[in-house]
């Protein structure tokens, strides 16, 4: 018998619990959750906001799934971790003992630091609680100001627009998501937003949120311009929740440092998901990822390791699927360039490796909303952006991952006016 404890009921924690149970069906397993709503799809909050989803559908686990897992889900915030005694102290004063511990405490939204940020009507989108408050606020508000440069900010814009709120979108950069999208892609997204009535403000920042009786009444931009609004929503980046680990003497940088077996520097303590900065032996460095599927994979690997089956986590090719202004978009491998202008810290949907741009040539083919962009290296496809029709994304994901030699088609891909879709389809 081994006593397992998992801190965090997000996807990394749940995947770890499933992995432990796949090897050990009888040992006691406790999942400690600070979130009053337990395990739900946090990426799904965007669709809850847009009205495409009912709240009760956010929960992937049904009663029988919890029963099958045979874990005890306990609500509580861990105040202290005492590694020498293998003991956790909860806020309530209760002690929880472990033999193997997983820290999967995730990340949280960075707070807006501006005069007026504490006013009622200022929102972030981190938890279900935030989403509920925002939706309630959107019922009352007619106009919103949204700020932030990444995927979550766009989800806020789209969700509020879908709820018939007039949205002013304030962007620090000259166009939407310039470190990942190229100019044409940014423009496609922006035009679609404008079509839905969103007003964009480029190279602009909030200077102050103005209030009246403790409520948001408007904002002042750095340009001096003022906008009237009843609510402000922001998504300016996220930070790993490492406080607990740091206080316990676990090695941390931007996240909790773990080796490829998801082990921290302290015996019997593991970390996975948004909070973990995982060593990649191929690159010789620690990566911090903030994507849901990677969190699941890390959690699964951590669980197997905790239950005694040594399993290395190998980071897949950076890969993200999202929906931008209604267009399903897959971003594979290396596509970005330069530093992120608009997102502080680590952006949701962003991955460090995208920023390390080797010499590459961009070949593209596109029409209205279906668009394909490839980043070609000397012999391989290094990255791709697939917007709209997703027919090519699985194929390209494989070609990037397996470093398929594209010499037979490279010249044709680069030819002026090349139908890159047709060439790829034929090559595959």
């Amino acid at each position: 018998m081994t006593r397992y404890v998992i801190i965090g009921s997000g996807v990394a924690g749940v995947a770890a619990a499933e992995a432990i149970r796949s090897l050990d069906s009888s040992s006691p397993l406790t999942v400690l959750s600070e979130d009053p709503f337990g395990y739900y799809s946090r990426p799904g909050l965007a669709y809850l906001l847009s009205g495409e989803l009912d709240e009760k559908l956010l929960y992937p686990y049904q009663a029988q799934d919890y029963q099958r897992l045979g874990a005890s889900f306990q609500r509580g915030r861990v105040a202290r971790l005492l590694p020498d005694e293998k003991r956790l102290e909860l806020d309530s004063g209760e002690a929880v003992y472990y033999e193997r511990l997983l820290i999967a405490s995730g990340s949280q939204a960075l707070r807006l630091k501006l005069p007026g940020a504490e006013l009622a009507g200022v929102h972030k989108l981190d938890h279900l609680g935030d989403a509920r408050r925002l939706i309630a606020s959107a019922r009352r508000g007619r106009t919103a100001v949204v700020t932030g440069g990444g995927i979550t900010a766009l989800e806020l814009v789209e969700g509020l627009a879908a709820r018939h709120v007039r949205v002013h979108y304030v962007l620090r950069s000259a166009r939407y998501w310039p470190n990942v999208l190229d100019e044409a892609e940014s423009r496609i997204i922006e035009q679609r937003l404008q079509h839905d009535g969103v007003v964009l403000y480029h190279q602009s920042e909030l200077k102050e949120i103005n209030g009246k009786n403790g409520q948001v009444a408007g904002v002042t931009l750095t340009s001096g311009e003022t906008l009237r609004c009843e609510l402000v929503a922001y998504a300016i980046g996220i930070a790993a929740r490492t406080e607990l680990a740091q206080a316990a003497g676990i090695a941390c940088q931007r996240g909790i440092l773990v080796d490829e077996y998801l082990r921290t520097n302290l015996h019997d303590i593991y970390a996975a998901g948004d909070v973990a900065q995982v060593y990649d032996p191929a690159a010789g460095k620690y990566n911090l990822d903030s994507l849901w599927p990677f969190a699941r994979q890390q959690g699964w690997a951590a669980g197997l390791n905790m239950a005694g089956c040594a399993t290395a986590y190998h980071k897949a090719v950076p890969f993200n699927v999202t929906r931008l202004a209604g267009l399903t978009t897959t971003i594979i491998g290396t596509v970005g360039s330069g530093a992120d202008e608009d997102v502080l810290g680590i952006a949701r949907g962003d991955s460090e490796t995208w920023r390390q741009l080797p010499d590459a040539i961009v070949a593209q083919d596109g029409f209205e909303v279906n668009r394909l962009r490839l980043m070609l290296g000397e012999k391989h496809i290094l990255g791709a952006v697939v917007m709209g029709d997703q027919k090519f994304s699985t194929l390209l994901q494989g070609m990037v991952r397996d470093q398929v030699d594209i010499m037979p088609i490279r010249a044709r891909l680069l030819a002026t006016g090349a139908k890159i879709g047709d060439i790829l389809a034929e090559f595959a």
Partner: protein
Amino acid sequence: MLKKLFTHETKRRTSMVKGQVTPDPTRCVQCGICSYNCPVSIDVRRHAWEGQPVVHSQCLTCGECVKRCPRGVLKFELTNLFTEAGR
């Protein structure tokens, strides 16, 4: 032109009739839109979590889940159910 249009439509319909819905779990974030929109209440999301095709006696292959998935997780894949061998 017209012929091409029909060929495309025929292909699409054939896939829907003869195919089954298969997920790519690496794209899925378990949001539940697929299950929410299934007219016969199949828990499509659970299939996506487990990486299993939606082999379900009640599946109408109507394509609602495929169409509504915001992340392109689901697609129709042809099966050999209706080929000579499957008859």
